[in-house]
């Protein structure tokens, strides 16, 4: 595993993570800073016993297509957790949005593959994203049944 170090320009060399992870960490997509005025169809909040990270995911479902129209999130966690949730939100909403069936089956492996890989010790970060999305969908389905 390569070690990171700072060069004389202040840039990180031999970055431990892929360029895609770096991009999603420094430029997270679909992050929700203030949910006060955001009306979601489902909310999932999960925490990781492995590291103490906490993640919240909000989803909006297109009522016509039943696909995920929006997937917003906020994560209290490390770079891998932020990048994982950001990528998860992109995968959930791209190409017209995932169906609920597809979203339920979005695995940590698929998220990590799109990120270009994560160190094994950061695997649990992608698990958190997967669980938070599942909880948000479960919340939506439970509300709908009511």
């Amino acid at each position, binding site marked *: 595993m390569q070690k990171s170090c700072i060069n004389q320009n202040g840039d990180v060399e031999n970055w431990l993570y892929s360029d895609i992870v770096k991009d999603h960490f420094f430029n997270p997509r679909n992050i929700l800073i203030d949910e006060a005025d955001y009306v979601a169809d489902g909310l999932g909040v999960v925490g990781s*016993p492995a590291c103490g990270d906490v993640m919240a995911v909000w989803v909006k479902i297109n009522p016509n297509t039943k696909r995920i129209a929006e997937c917003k999130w906020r994560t209290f966690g490390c770079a891998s957790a932020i990048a994982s949730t950001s990528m998860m939100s992109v995968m959930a909403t791209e190409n017209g949005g995932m169906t609920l069936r*597809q979203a*339920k*089956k979005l695995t940590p492996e698929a998220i990590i593959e799109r990120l270009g890989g994560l160190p094994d010790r950061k*695997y649990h970060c992608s698990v958190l994203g997967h669980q938070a999305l599942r909880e948000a969908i479960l919340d939506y389905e439970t509300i709908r049944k009511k």
Partner: protein
Amino acid sequence: MKLFEKNNCRVLTKRVETHDVVTIDFIPESDADYSYKPGQYINIFLPNTSTSEGKSYSLSSAPREGVLSITVKRIGEFSDYLSNLKVGEIFQATTPYGFFFTESDTSELVLISGGIGIAPFRSMIINSPDRPIYLFSSHKTQGDDIFGSEMRKRVQENPLFHFYETFTRTGGERLNAQTILSKTEIHKTTEFFLCGSIGFVRDMWKGLVSQGIPEEVIYTEAFF
């Protein structure tokens, strides 16, 4: 938050499975809801270890058995401590959680496990005698064989259950997607479950996807 609510649980019985694996039957001491679906896990907390945040263990018992069990492989301080708990001793655990289960009662299941990854599959297999199930189980040696005799007996009793095991350090082939798919009857409703180390699950997932299996029929649970 479900993952952090701890309840006292008491060790009822213990069974030795292999030289480094034990199964622990336990009972909650509160009225918290411990109903579960095969494939789910609990988070266990052992304050006397350096892992204060706890670790997750799949339930290896089946709901229809009316007992709660986990199967623990000794790999470090936490699992050693857990394995050494005596009958009557208390540990803390959350209620069952997780999404590693099928929502269908009738789909065919292809279960692929590496080592202790067989634990949640025992729950699925015992709880579903009326659906076609293929279990592919990989261990290092015969001495590491967990639940093997139970599964071999089940093959004799249930024509819907198919069991393939391999021991990789004594000449057995490593599981790969091509071999697995060549031995299974795949239908549109077939679902795949992968459980084991991070690397094992990753390689199996990539292999199945590369062989054309849709991602949305593959469930994964990696132990870390």
